[in-house]
């Protein structure tokens, strides 16, 4: 017990976010507000990128902060706090994505195929082409496995380094590299001729 208290005290001194989290857990509304505003957009954004809908992103955001407060005692001080938040968020998002995939895989496949044909060879303005491309990337991303998607989102959207991604997802850097490479290759493959138009 004493050791735990000392450990948390040391963590709080090294990491101001832990101090905020601890105070928030103890009922300090201001501390929670400060912590939430610091991470709300990052958490929401990762969740939204991973799941594709605002509703799910809100659910994940909420759960991520609640989990963080409830699991604070299990925080490993060797890691950085923001990677811990990413890990919680990514894990929640992966679980959401897996559940959603089981529910709507067939529907997604059909709609994607139809839309993909509409886009190709269209005479689009540069701006319209960009919009179409990003939408296509989003759809291609949905076809990736959640674990590949998580690496892609953390790298491309959040622009984390490989080591940060590895820390966030608790995987080796080599795994980060291979997953990221596979994710990019599959997205490019999905975009196909559309990518040529874009070039």
């Amino acid at each position: 017990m004493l050791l735990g208290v000392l450990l948390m005290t040391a963590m709080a001194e090294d990491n101001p976010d832990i101090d905020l989290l601890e105070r928030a857990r103890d009922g300090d509304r201001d501390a929670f507000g400060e912590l939430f505003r610091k991470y709300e957009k990052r958490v929401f954004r990762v969740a939204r990128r991973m799941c594709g809908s605002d509703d799910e992103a809100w659910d994940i955001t909420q759960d991520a902060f609640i989990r963080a407060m409830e699991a604070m005692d299990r925080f490993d001080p060797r890691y950085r706090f923001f990677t811990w938040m990413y890990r919680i968020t990514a894990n929640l998002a992966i679980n959401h994505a897996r559940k959603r995939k089981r529910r709507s895989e067939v529907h997604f496949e059909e709609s994607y195929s139809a839309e993909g044909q509409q886009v190709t060879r269209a005479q689009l303005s540069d701006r319209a082409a960009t919009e179409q491309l990003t939408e296509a990337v989003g759809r291609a991303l949905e076809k990736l496995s959640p674990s590949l998607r998580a690496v892609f989102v953390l790298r491309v959207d959040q622009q984390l380094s490989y080591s940060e991604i590895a820390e966030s997802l608790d995987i080796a850097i080599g795994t980060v590299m291979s997953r990221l490479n596979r994710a990019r290759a599959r997205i490019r493959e999905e975009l196909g001729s559309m990518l040529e138009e874009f070039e």
Partner: protein
Amino acid sequence: MSCPDFEKLMLYLDGELDEEDLRIVREHLEDCEECRRILATQSRLEESWRNDFRFPEGSEFRRMEDRIFGRVHGRRGWRSMIPVAAGIIAVLLGVKLILTGNPSLDRVSSTAAEWTKDYTMEDTRVGVPGRTGEHSGPEAPGPAPESPEETAEQPLEEHEELVEEMIVDHDGTGDAATRSLVDETSVMRQQVASDVTEDMESSGSFAYGGGVLRGSAQVEQDEIPSAHDSSVFAEEAAGLIGQTPQEEAGERWETGTAADDTALIRSAEVVPDMTGVTTSESDRYLSEGLEEVEAQDETVCFEEELVSCPPEYFNRTDDGCVALVFDGEGMPDSLTAVLLDSLSPGWRDYIKPVFMDTVMVVPLADLNEILRYGGGVPAETTE
């Protein structure tokens, strides 16, 4: 120079190449338009996708912030109330026990002599279905408790004799001692027409199906009897009953009805209510109760009394006596369970199959002994 593979180009794009690889890729890109095109396309694609994001309005984040904080601390607040609620319940239960005449340790140490003196066959008849609304209630004074010292001085021989008198089989067909005791109540026996009511009056207690146990207040509440004591107790009980449980049950059920049995249960539950009623009153209640049973042959005849009486009175008397009601699986009913929880917390370890379908009215002082040793009374079931 051959082109670097796609993975290496992406490492270059991500700034993750080491010095040596970085230099090599840079040199290659100066001369390779195809690789520059791939990098440019990938970079533009990712940048476009990254920039194509619109956050919800800030107010939604603020609402979410409030909601999360409320959920975390609302839930924690609810959890923190559990110990408080448990404490309140414990206090209320304690007050309830005190107000309903929970006998003190002094009072539960009543002796067998006192027991037989104050709970003669005449007295016990008041437990037959009657009018609970007319009884004097839990405030009625019970027999004066004896001190623990007096109890300890009770001779064993006397105790054994008293036990013989007090343990009676439910249909009065036991050995000589039982019959002798039953003879004393022959007047009352004549009033009884049905096998059901005979069961109640002859036992001098209140039994349903299983063994009937009453008396034997020799042992202090928390005193564990010796092996000799318990074996004597068991032998006496078995000898008095003189029939196997199956035989007894069979005989009884040949003449009894299901409705009668339910009535018996009800009557047993009413027992403690009646302890303050005088003998003459109890006789009247007995007659009326029996008439009611015979006339209606329905279990509902005592329902009103049960409803009108606070449930805690069902299981407890002012005289250090409690009624224990066990179901067909040998488990106590809810009131009995509450009672046992408060009086004998380890009762779940003691509970035995012999209690199946049994109602016992026992001195509080003997409760633990009865639970531990099955009361020394052979098992009976209502099969």
